[in-house]
């Protein structure tokens, strides 16, 4: 083939190749997702890819021929970029602030490369732009999130520490509670009284003392209801006793057999004013009961043994004095009269002693009756009429202004208390003076009082007035006979009635003794 023809053919082939290549490039230019542009050596835009146009918002024709500054929002960005580009001819991911049509700023990364011809002459630049708005936004959010996370971390760290502290506190509380529990358990275990605990109507605890009382084991009782225990022979009577009385029990006696008596008390355990269970306390009173019985028997016997010879003397003397054994001379009679009086004092002393034995414990009132205190006072005062008259003392019974409310009393014992007080008043008052017995009262109590203008009570002896066998020093001087038991007996009686006893006195001018008794609230009829 001639040379010309060859070149011609070759040129044609090359032209076709270039055109094909151009087509490729144009196609690529259309679809490549990166914004790309080609500029002149002085940065005039020559070619732009579709992505470039889309990114900056220009039509191809609109932007072609414009200086590249058009798409830069900051002059210094371009300056920095060109300074780096000249010596190196290539820059990668240079951060700039781009500018879209209308002025909107777009953060972007620019890469650029300088293109030279075969002689090394600069012919153009190719720029690529990547929009990093989203990345920046994500980065921003990320940073915020990280900061937030850090804050949370700090908070969590704080919470963790606080939790650890709480755990430590809880631990020490637990240790303290355990100690307390062990202590309580030791007390309950070694308690001489029987203790049972009921929760949700079931026995949840029975201490060794209570187990011993009923001769039962813990396993036989714990977890059972009272109704269930009624089927257990050993503890049956106790279960029935509890079942019978629904409300709280205070010191009620439960005889298990003739010689074994328990005193039962129950206390409701409350939480927020609601009953959650019961504590049952069992106190063995067998010994007390036995002693009480022995005491009654002793008093009866002692009364007999002590009084029998005294009554024999009394009767014999009396019959002699009355002339039943034949007539006697006056001086003999006087002598016998004195002996008789001595014997009477002896009888009185024995009576006092017996009263004390009976009353000392004070707890047991015999058949309390609802009555008016004033009636009892009148009865007792009347019985002293003769004695007062003999001593030329005016014994006055002062009536209360209004009707007193009734009291519930062991009449016999209250009479005895009144007797002792009135007896003292008459005994220690001068002849011709007055003793005033009075009753008064209010809604809550009835008050009995005896006022005299006798010797009074020395100041330094006030606290001992109600002691056993105590007698005021001034009283001893007047009368050597008193037993020192009268006020002691009176105090025991009054206190057994839940009353109070007291006095007011000015030495040498007299004394007023009072006792008060609570009004009977049972609304009982007189």
């Amino acid at each position, binding site marked *: 083939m001639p040379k010309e023809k060859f070149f011609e053919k070759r040129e044609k082939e090359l032209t076709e190749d270039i055109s094909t290549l151009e087509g490729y490039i144009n196609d690529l230019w259309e679809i490549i997702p990166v914004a790309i542009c080609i500029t002149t050596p002085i940065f005039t835009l020559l070619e732009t890819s579709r992505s470039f146009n889309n990114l900056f918002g220009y039509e191809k024709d609109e932007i072609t021929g414009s200086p590249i500054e058009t798409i830069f929002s900051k002059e210094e960005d371009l300056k920095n970029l060109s300074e780096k580009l000249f010596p190196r001819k290539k820059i990668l991911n240079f951060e700039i602030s781009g500018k879209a049509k209308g002025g909107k700023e777009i953060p972007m990364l620019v890469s650029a490369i300088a293109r030279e011809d075969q002689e090394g002459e600069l012919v153009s630049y190719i720029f690529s732009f990547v929009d990093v708005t989203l990345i920046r936004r994500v980065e921003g959010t990320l940073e915020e999130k990280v900061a937030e996370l850090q804050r949370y971390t700090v908070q969590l760290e704080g919470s963790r520490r606080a939790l650890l502290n709480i755990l430590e506190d809880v631990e020490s509380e637990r240790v303290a509670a355990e100690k307390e529990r062990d202590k309580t358990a030791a007390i309950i275990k070694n308690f001489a009284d029987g203790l049972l605990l009921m929760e949700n109507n079931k026995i949840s605890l029975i201490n060794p003392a209570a187990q011993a009382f009923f001769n039962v084991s813990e396993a036989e009782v714990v977890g059972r209801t009272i109704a269930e225990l009624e089927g257990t022979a050993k503890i049956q009577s106790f279960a029935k006793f509890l079942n019978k009385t629904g409300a709280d029990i205070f010191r009620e006696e439960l005889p298990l057999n003739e010689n074994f008596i328990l005193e039962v008390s129950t206390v409701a355990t409350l939480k927020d004013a609601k009953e959650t269970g019961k504590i049952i306390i069992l106190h063995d009173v067998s010994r007390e009961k036995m002693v009480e019985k022995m005491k*009654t028997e002793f*008093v*009866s*016997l002692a*009364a*007999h043994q*002590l*009084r*029998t010879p*005294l*009554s*024999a003397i*009394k*009767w*014999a003397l*009396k*019959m002699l004095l*009355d002339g*039943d054994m034949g007539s006697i001379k006056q001086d003999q009679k006087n002598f016998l009269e004195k002996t008789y009086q001595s014997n009477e004092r002896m*009888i009185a002393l*024995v*009576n006092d002693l017996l009263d004390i034995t*009976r009353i000392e414990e004070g707890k047991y009132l*015999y*058949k309390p009756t609802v009555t008016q205190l004033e009636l009892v006072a009148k009865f007792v005062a009347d019985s002293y009429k003769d004695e007062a008259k003999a001593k030329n003392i005016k014994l006055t019974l002062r009536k209360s202004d209004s009707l007193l409310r009734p009291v519930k009393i062991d009449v*016999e014992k209250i009479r005895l208390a009144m007797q002792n007080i009135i007896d003292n008043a008459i005994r220690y008052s001068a002849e011709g003076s007055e003793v005033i017995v009075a009753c008064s009262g209010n809604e809550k109590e009835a008050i009995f009082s005896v006022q005299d203008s006798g010797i009074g009570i020395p100041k330094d002896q006030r606290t001992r007035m109600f002691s056993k066998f105590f007698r005021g020093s001034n009283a001893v001087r007047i009368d050597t006979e008193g037993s020192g038991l009268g006020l002691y007996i009176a105090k025991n009686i009054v206190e057994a009635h839940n009353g109070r006893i007291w006095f007011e006195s000015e030495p040498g001018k007299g004394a007023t003794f009072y006792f008060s008794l609570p009004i009977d609230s049972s609304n009982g009829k007189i």
Partner: protein
Amino acid sequence: MAQKILIIEDEKVLMELICKKLEKEGYAVETAGDGESGLRKMRETKPDLVLLDIVMPKMNGFEVLETANQDQTLKTIPVIILSNSGQLVELDQARALGVRDWLIKTEFDPQEVVEKVVKQIGAPK
């Protein structure tokens, strides 16, 4: 015929004293020194009144009362207790057994005992 009084009392001196006093008043008096013989004499003599002590050997006053109460012929005989004890428990017990009166020996003298007797069965005929 004078009314018959039975005294059941273990304390000899007291028994003699009250016996003498009542006889002097004009009553016919029988005596017994313990509860057991007292009960026997109650059956034998059918007295108009019994003066009964409480604390006595062999059979105490309460036991005498309980036994007498079961016997139709003795049940109606009035009884006055003559004792040195006087606890309310005992008084209530005696009252329940139909006792007419209760005298504490140290509190009453023989003349007053006579008055109580007269109150129950009248002056001696």
